[in-house]
């Protein structure tokens, strides 16, 4: 069972994509509601979810406009860009998974976000990675936009959505998506170091910057091959390899 089974891998990718899509959609309601509460109209709210389509950047824009109004416009744009920079780095990694052809790459760029990248790279084969990327991107796009509109329209009825624990669910989902990659010692070391760097820097840097500075951990470990393994074990062990399921 060292060779990943293609059918099994594809079905795992589909399951993860739909689960992540559903969880993110639940979060879209809170974006829609908060956006309208910060003074944007329903059209502006939906424009952000359709065109910007990057949760962190969207929350930053409405948060800053709510606090500072239009005079804080420059800060709003800068924060959105800072938080969106990691998507560019994801694009670098996803380009070989997506393949060539500019219409395809343009569409891929639009749905290149934390979720689609994480689901894709958690899969064991190129085909399942491709499936995970597109399916998650589309599922999140459809769900996020639908629930943004719902949240913008019904807004206050739901109250504080954090009462449902959705913020913790989002963090837990990313832990799960990273999990299969942490079996490699180098990746696990990078993950731990990057998490510590980001947490330590959060109180001192603008939102968005801690994650980007934490990315430097990967540059250092990658360039020097710290904690690298000489003998290459199967790169993406399927679940059930060590302990039969």
């Amino acid at each position, binding site marked *: 069972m060292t060779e990943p089974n293609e059918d099994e891998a594809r079905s795992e990718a589909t*399951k993860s994509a739909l*689960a992540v899509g559903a969880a993110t959609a639940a979060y879209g309601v809170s974006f829609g509601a908060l956006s309208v509460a910060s*003074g*944007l109209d329903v059209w502006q709210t939906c*424009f952000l979810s359709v065109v*910007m389509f990057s949760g962190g950047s969207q929350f930053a*824009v409405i948060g800053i*406009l709510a606090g500072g109004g*239009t005079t804080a*416009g420059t800060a*709003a744009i800068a924060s*959105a*860009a800072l938080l969106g920079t*990691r998507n*560019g*780095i*994801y*694009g*670098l*990694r*996803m*380009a*070989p998974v997506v393949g060539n052809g500019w219409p395809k790459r*343009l569409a*891929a*760029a639009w749905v*290149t976000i934390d979720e689609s990248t994480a689901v894709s*790279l958690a899969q064991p084969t190129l085909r399942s990675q491709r499936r995970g990327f597109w399916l998650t991107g589309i599922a999140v796009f459809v769900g996020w936009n639908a629930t943004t509109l719902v949240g913008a329209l019904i807004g206050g009825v739901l109250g504080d959505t954090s009462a*449902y*624990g*959705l913020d*913790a*669910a*989002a*963090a*837990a*989902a*990313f*832990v*799960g*998506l*990273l999990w299969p990659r942490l079996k490699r010692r180098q990746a696990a070391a990078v*993950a*731990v170091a*990057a*998490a510590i760097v*980001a*947490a330590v820097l*959060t*109180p001192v840097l603008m*939102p968005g910057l*801690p*994650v980007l500075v*934490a*990315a430097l951990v*990967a*540059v250092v470990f*990658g360039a020097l091959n710290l904690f690298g393994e000489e003998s290459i074990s199967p790169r993406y062990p399927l679940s059930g390899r060590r*302990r039969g*399921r």
Partner: protein
Amino acid sequence: MDGDEAVTVWQIIILASIACVALKLAGYLVPASVLANPAAARTADLLTVAMLAALVAVQTLGNGEAIVVDARLPAVIVAVVLFALRVPFVVVVIAAALVAAGIRAVT
């Protein structure tokens, strides 16, 4: 004045959106040959691990520009334990939400 202000909000969200889409595209514009070097390929792979791990830390502990320990931390710890026990993804995510919601309900 209302009209002027509406235009300004639109200008801000359009500019910010263009910036975000351009950044997403930028990664796909890097020539594939850059990743032919093993160190570069390894680093590109580790970059996604580092940023997603950093994102978990910020989502678990961050609150704007502050670090806050609240219901999210125990929920994520429970999730880590369940993933280590090979509990399926969806079940773990739901369990994490329930832990956080439960703690918030009683505190």
